[in-house]
């Protein structure tokens, strides 16, 4: 598979957004993307942490690589 630098950068940007969401849900009491009263949503934080890691892995797949001998 040929790599794509723009796609890799887009995935990295997505990873940064997911990372910010992770920090947000770990530290802020909120009802954003959740029902009920505002509280800490550690499950949301874990989901966004996993998505962050997956986006980084996907970016690594997408980046152009030197051809193998």
């Amino acid at each position, binding site marked *: *598979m040929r790599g794509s630098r723009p796609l890799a950068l887009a995935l990295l940007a997505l990873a940064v957004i997911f990372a910010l969401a992770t920090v947000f849900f770990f530290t802020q009491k909120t009802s954003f*993307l959740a*029902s009920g009263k505002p509280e800490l949503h550690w*499950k*949301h934080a874990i*989901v966004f942490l996993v998505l962050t890691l*997956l986006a980084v*892995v996907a970016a*690594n*797949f997408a*980046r152009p*690589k030197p051809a193998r001998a």
Partner: protein
Amino acid sequence: MLSAGLILFLAALQGVTELFPVSSLGHAVVVPPLIGLNFQESSPAFVPVLAVLHLGTAGALLFLYRRDWVRIVVGFFRAAVQGRIDGPDQRLAIMLIVGSVPAGIVGFLLQDPLKSLFADPRAASAFLIVNGGILFAAEMFRRRDERRRAVAGAPVLAHEEDDPAYERIEGLSLRTTVIVGFFQAGALLPGISRSGITMAAGLVAGLRHEEAARFSFLLATPIILAAGLFELPDLGSDAPTLLVAIAAAALAGLVAYASARFLLRYLRSGRLDPFAYYCAALGVAGLVFIR
């Protein structure tokens, strides 16, 4: 509060039905009222108790495919670091990630509306009928494919295992895996079977029956495990005692292991349509008898 006896009954029921393509959740919602058990699906402990049972089932699947899982985990880390896929283990690892993400995201975002459906046995009964239709349609597609191959002069072998026309999991494309993953998200509805819908999608994609089951079980494991772990803290004050929870998870796991072994053996020569008829019959019974 759910009684210990009822929880153990649900454990056995869940163990049998989780891996058979008949929807364990649909059974947990439909069967107790159908056989007249004193049972509130809307009890706050219901979903967390099911989650504990899921941990037992996930444990059974991890044990059943323990060698596969070691290769898959190692393959994932190697592929993630290299940024490329080398070999079938790495390919399978990436396919399982790609196939799990859609159901994980949909399930996470829609968990509250979906939980309200758990309290409605009649809705689950209707979805069981839909599940029967999906299984039946998948078998119909497969039989049509076999007939076409026979007409085209290709040899029709007695066992798919020897037939090169049908794929192993590693032969699936990533695009097909994503589609199967989205289908898996449909199984968040009580009555739609996760294993059923992924087996059906695998069959339509050209997998052998036994491979479709293996794909389904491997794909289900991370989702079942995550669902179990995520719901565990919600057991709260309505929780069964720790001993009952452990016994129930162990019972669900043992029964699930036996069910998986049986199903894999059955699917070497058997088909999905008996399960389709069973789901349709249970769904109709639920609609008729549950008020």
